[in-house]
């Protein structure tokens, strides 16, 4: 039982980070109707930025996160302006291919700048130990949990109480109406890409603290897609719930089934199996909007 609870608790922390990454994806999807395949690569860049600020420059965690957010904002602005804006009005495939190509370029840049090597910053983060009975929570996971919950709350407040947040929610609802009342759609797009970059980078710093940074860290983006599909592609609440579900399921399944399989590695393929099942039986996810199509 302790083993099970332990798996659930670490899965929960992991799931919150997945949810954070998935939210970046959902925000772009809602506001500009673009599917951002590069979300996982924002995470990768975030991990390496975390390494740079924490280890190379030796800054404290909070300053590092602030600096990383600053970098992410510039990155988001550049990506939106240079790559995505020329494609407004193009078919969906073009936009998806653009984000895939962006992912490739980001991976190339990460390889160029950081050498694509395994970097870790385990000891650098402050230690917080939590023990409930026999279940202990690793310090990195706990920090991940706290920061992702905080980020989620900040974003909820942002969408609820700021003017640009309102504009973004309106754009998600109906682009034409929004433009006719004088909201600049391009600003909304830019802000949504910035937010996506920021949450990706924060997620990257946190995941990097848990498991180290390497190029395959970008695959966490694929897990975030599984989260998005399970939760419903246009629901932020769904992303949070699904993130937690998937994080816990993955950890528990890996903990119990991996010893039975000769080669293990179930944790890596598990999200994809979930994905296929969701897509076949419930393509709009748990909380997604079922879109009725007309000719």
């Amino acid at each position: 039982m302790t083993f099970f609870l332990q798996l659930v608790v670490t899965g929960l922390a992991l799931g919150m980070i997945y949810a954070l990454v998935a939210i970046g994806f959902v925000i772009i999807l809602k506001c500009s109707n673009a599917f951002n395949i590069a979300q996982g690569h924002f995470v990768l860049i975030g991990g390496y930025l975390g390494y740079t600020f924490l280890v190379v420059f030796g800054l404290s965690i909070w300053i590092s996160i602030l600096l990383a957010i600053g970098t992410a904002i510039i990155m988001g602005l550049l990506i939106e302006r240079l790559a995505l804006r020329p494609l407004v009005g193009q078919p969906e495939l073009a936009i998806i291919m653009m984000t895939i190509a962006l992912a490739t370029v980001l991976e190339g840049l990460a390889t160029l700048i950081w050498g694509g090597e395994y970097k870790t910053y385990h000891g650098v983060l402050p230690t917080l130990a939590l023990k409930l009975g026999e279940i202990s929570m690793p310090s990195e996971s706990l920090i991940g949990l706290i920061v992702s919950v905080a980020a989620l709350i900040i974003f909820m407040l942002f969408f609820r109480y700021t003017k640009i947040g309102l504009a973004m929610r309106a754009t998600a609802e109906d682009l034409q109406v929004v433009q006719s009342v004088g909201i600049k759609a391009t600003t909304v797009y830019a802000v949504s890409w910035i937010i996506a970059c920021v949450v990706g980078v924060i997620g990257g710093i946190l995941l990097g603290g848990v498991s180290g940074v390497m190029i395959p860290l970008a695959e966490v983006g694929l897990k975030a897609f599984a989260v998005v599909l399970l939760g419903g592609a246009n629901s932020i609440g769904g992303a949070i719930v699904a993130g937690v579900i998937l994080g816990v399921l993955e950890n528990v399944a890996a903990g119990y089934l991996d010893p039975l399989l000769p080669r293990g590695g179930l944790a890596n393929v598990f999200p994809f199996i979930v994905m296929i099942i969701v897509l076949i039986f419930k393509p709009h996810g748990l909380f997604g909007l079922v879109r009725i199509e007309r000719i």
Partner: protein
Amino acid sequence: MAIFRTRGDWGILLAFLVFLSVCPLFLSDRILTIMTMIGIAIVSVHGLNILTGYCGQISIGHVGFMAVGAYVSAILTAKLGWSFWTALPCAALAAGIAGLIFGLPSLKIKGFYLIMATIAAHFIIIWLILQLYHVTGGPDGMPVPKPKIGGFVLKSKASYFYLVMVFTCLSTLLANNIARTRAGRAFVAVRDNDLAAEVMGISLWSYKLQAFFIGCVYAGVAGVLLVHYYAFASVDQFPFMDSVWYLGMLIVGGMGSTSGAIMGAISLKLLDELVTIVGPILSAVVAAQAAASLALITRGLVIILFLIFEPRGLAHRWGMIKTYFRLWPFSHEE
């Protein structure tokens, strides 16, 4: 309408075939290898073109289906001792069936959701290959015999080049013809507006799955050609990024046109070759990792630039150039 309409077309075709059949006599092994790889890529991109370019079902799991064909053929020839020529159709069929299974979600979903399903297909297929290690060799891979015709083993680069070129030409002809059949027209209708197509009486269920089947059969054949060329099968030959790169070839060449698929495959494979030449020089000058990152960055940038500046691909541009010269000197500026 015939594919080859004028005597000029026939002449060009004949000249091209004669060139293909004599070029191993004077080209070096290295260039023959590049051409063989281009041929295999063309077969694969034709499949993707039918599935994505004509039918509009975006697949980023194409390499996964190549792996299915490759491993089925590898197991049949290496473990069961079948000949290459009986293993090839079985492998193609297996890849097609895998395509049908993972194409099932396409009945309910499209666009991004389908992309996710095909990405999932890729990772599940590779995971299964690694799990079945007592048959497939898992991460160690497995040796595969070279194909034989009668008693003659296609061991030399030149002989394998001929084999691949035969398949490339046949698959091009077939792809061009599929596009002009009832099914091909139905694919285009499904791509342009699937609801309208259904209202017109086109069975989405049947034609989407047909597109998946045909596209994945092509992928399977390409996979078989690839592993028998290397005489070795390993999951490293089927990296996920190659699926993206095949889609990139389709974009650079132009979606939904056979000549576009060929142009895309040729130009991007040549670009790859250029990168393998320039990469080491750059690595020596800048940093050790420059070669690896250069490959990634050029791939991404090419796709980005084509999406922004030439979204209809080389085939469209080629058509415009041809029209310009046909009308010259009385062409009009658009």
